[in-house]
């Protein structure tokens, strides 16, 4: 029997998209607390305001993060959600699961929590949504002892890294995103579980510039797969596309009649650098002019493949607007090898240089992207021991407000006014 009337939420049970209301009601048959989730949410729909109190500091011993505390401000009405803490569970790389492990986690959560989840949080964690403080250690004990899975991150620390599905099921991945994500997560467990940073720090791994995990927008340090040599062309397959044997873009556009495939209009003319042309029925690419945007490869996946000299580009500093405005990550290192054999040594060197600097220089609650803006990209490049390159800018500066270091200028900054006046009297 429903514990509360939910006339507004009931309206979200109709329509074709899976209804979270229907799902919560079904779960309520197993766990009474779910009626209170709906009851409080209905009240929020009526009042048009949240009914969760500010903040909440809870956790498990040994860790400084991983659990987001939450308390209802109408707990008398909805005792089932008086405490409604969220447990972040570290997901396996690219979110492949067996039914066995998911059922194990569900079993713990049905006994000790609301039975509601987020699959998954935006950062990647498997989110267990809603439990009481006294259950937290019990849940952590069972997760670590019985399932063999740890908590994810929260607070001023390394948050849970995540990756695209990479080489597991994509022909474009330029490095092993899952191995890298797993290795980095395991290497920096201490930085993930015990906040030691000025603010949060996220790392994301995408296998190519299509960036399916949105690393360039959603991580402080983005590792995006790239290649250095020539795009591999299968000329027979190019002909296949021209003759209409293969659908453009793997068939992504098949729901509408866009006419016959036109390689000039759909590939050559859309290339951002104009570095492609046809010689007879042979496709030519001037690879030195290619910026590896992926468009031609996306359109003709059977004919074109990334080169074989593969690695990753490192971009740093993406963040949402608070405080100083949103940032997309800035290209810092054009190309590194991503080698599981040497435990991603080059990447770790970059990560640790970043952290060494930012942990000293970063202000309280200042994302690394803001620290770089405040202190300047030239200084950051020095810290990172990266030579300044034209690739570091979209365009050179237009203002002339240039800093010079004293040692860069002959004679230095120490000057004698008397000497100056000898030649240039007032």
């Amino acid at each position, binding site marked *: 029997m429903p514990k509360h009337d939910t006339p507004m939420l009931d*309206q979200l049970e109709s*329509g074709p*998209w*899976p*209804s*979270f*209301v229907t*799902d919560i009601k079904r779960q309520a048959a*197993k766990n009474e607390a779910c009626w209170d989730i709906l009851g409080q949410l209905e009240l*929020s*729909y009526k009042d*048009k*305001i*949240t*009914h969760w*109190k*500010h903040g909440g500091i809870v956790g498990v*011993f040994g*860790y400084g993060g991983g659990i987001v505390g*939450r308390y209802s401000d109408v707990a008398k009405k909805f005792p089932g959600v008086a405490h409604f803490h*969220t447990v972040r569970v570290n*997901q396996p790389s*690219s*979110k*492949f*699961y067996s*039914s066995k492990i*998911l059922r194990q986690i*569900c079993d713990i959560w049905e006994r000790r929590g609301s*039975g*509601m*989840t*987020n*699959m*998954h949080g935006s950062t990647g964690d498997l989110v267990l949504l809603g439990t009481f403080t006294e259950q937290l250690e019990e849940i952590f*004990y069972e997760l670590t*002892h019985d399932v*063999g*899975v*740890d908590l994810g991150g929260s607070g001023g620390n390394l948050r849970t890294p995540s990756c695209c599905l990479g*080489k*597991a*099921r*994509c*022909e474009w991945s330029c490095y092993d995103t899952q191995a890298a994500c*797993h290795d980095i997560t395991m290497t920096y467990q201490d930085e993930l*579980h015990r906040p030691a940073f000025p603010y949060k720090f996220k790392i994301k791994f995408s296998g190519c*510039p*299509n960036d399916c995990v*949105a690393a360039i*927008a959603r991580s402080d340090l983005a590792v995006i797969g790239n290649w250095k040599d020539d795009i591999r062309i299968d000329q027979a397959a190019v002909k296949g596309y021209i003759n209409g044997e293969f659908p453009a873009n793997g068939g*992504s*556009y098949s*729901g509408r009649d866009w006419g016959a495939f036109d390689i000039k209009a759909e590939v050559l003319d*859309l290339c951002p650098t104009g570095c492609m042309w046809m010689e007879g029925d042979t496709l030519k690419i001037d690879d030195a002019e290619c910026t590896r*945007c992926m468009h031609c490869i996306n359109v003709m996946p*059977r004919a074109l493949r990334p080169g074989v000299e593969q690695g990753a580009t490192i971009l740093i500093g993406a963040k*949402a*607007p*608070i405080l100083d405005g949103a940032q997309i990550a800035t290209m810092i290192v054009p190309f590194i090898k991503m080698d599981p054999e040497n435990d991603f040594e080059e990447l770790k060197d970059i990560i640790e240089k970043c952290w060494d600097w930012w942990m000293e220089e970063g202000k309280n609650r200042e994302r690394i992207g803001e620290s770089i803006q405040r202190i300047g990209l030239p200084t950051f490049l020095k810290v990172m021991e990266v030579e300044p390159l034209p690739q570091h800018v979209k365009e050179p500066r237009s203002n002339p407000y240039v800093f010079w270091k004293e040692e860069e200028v002959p004679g230095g900054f120490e000057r004698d006014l008397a000497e100056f006046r000898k030649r240039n009297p007032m």
Partner: protein
Amino acid sequence: MGYDPQNPMKDRITDIGPPHYEQFFPPVIKENYGKWLYHEILEPGVLKHVSETGAECYTVRIGSARLISTSLINDYCDMADKHCDGYLRFTTRNNVEFMVDSADKVQALVDDCNAHGMMPVGGTGAGVTNIVHTQGWVHCHTPATDASGVVKAVMDELFDYFTSMTLPAQVRVALACCLNMCGAVHCSDIAILGVHRKPPLIDNDTITSVCELPLAIAACPLGAIKPAKGVNSKGEEVKSVTVNVDRCMFCGNCYTMCPSMPLADPEGDGIAILVGGKISNSRSAPKFSKLVIPFLPNNPPRWPETVEAVKNILEVYAKDAMKYERVGEWAERIGWEKFFEKCNIPFTDKSIDDYRLAYDTWRTTTQFKFTSHIK
């Protein structure tokens, strides 16, 4: 056995991280790891990947509400056990994927998904896939709108675009319930953003005991908060802050830092719409989304104004844009003045940037189109 509260550090296991991903690979994935040659989308929601070994992997993608119960997860597990050797995965947009290793196993899987009622097949190619979204009124303390309800209302209306591939390019819709923008709102084709429109209240009965005032002051992007003496309900003078209302743009970051500065308001709060962001590097560089509708009211449970606005933008884009063109690429090609005209969205001063680097967004050229805006 089990956790002992008397000896909390006894038998404690820490720093074990996530389980290793490889143990969850279906055999066809494990055997063809790094060997994939090409892929095709056979129909909306069904992908085929072909390996250099000749092996094939077929993937069926289904939509999910993200906020889901263990009962539904168990249904996913049943589906995986029945068709996929017990393996499944979740995507970066919170869809679910089931994989099989031969073409003749696909139809039964698709049929079972469609018969379930909560597992719509789709989300591939040039359509609208799942909406990346946040906690809203289900779990968060700083939202200006709900997440799950708005997403359900929008996806019901755009459902046909989830199950088809008829658009000029893929359209990424995202929602964040406040401008912390957890998720992808700042870089999405169409973004739904919860916004406040009233400055914070100041609770002088609690502020001294629950807030670090310097943190609240430093939390303001516009320097609108200053230390000040306040008077509590007993008439006593306390250390507090003032908010310069003329400088406050209602971001809510002071409330994030200080529980005594709440700003949520039923009439003040609502939704802004941003468009034209993208993440991929394909053709054009990644772009931020831009604010085109400054305010729509919160109107639960179905947010009709928001649903209508999103649908309108999507459909004008679908009709007008060229093949492969993302929403932002289209708007920039035709010019934002044409975007507003074609979408019949009133242009207001709220869309003109006035924050720090705003100048870069003003029009410093004689190049513009005469539209209905110029009388």
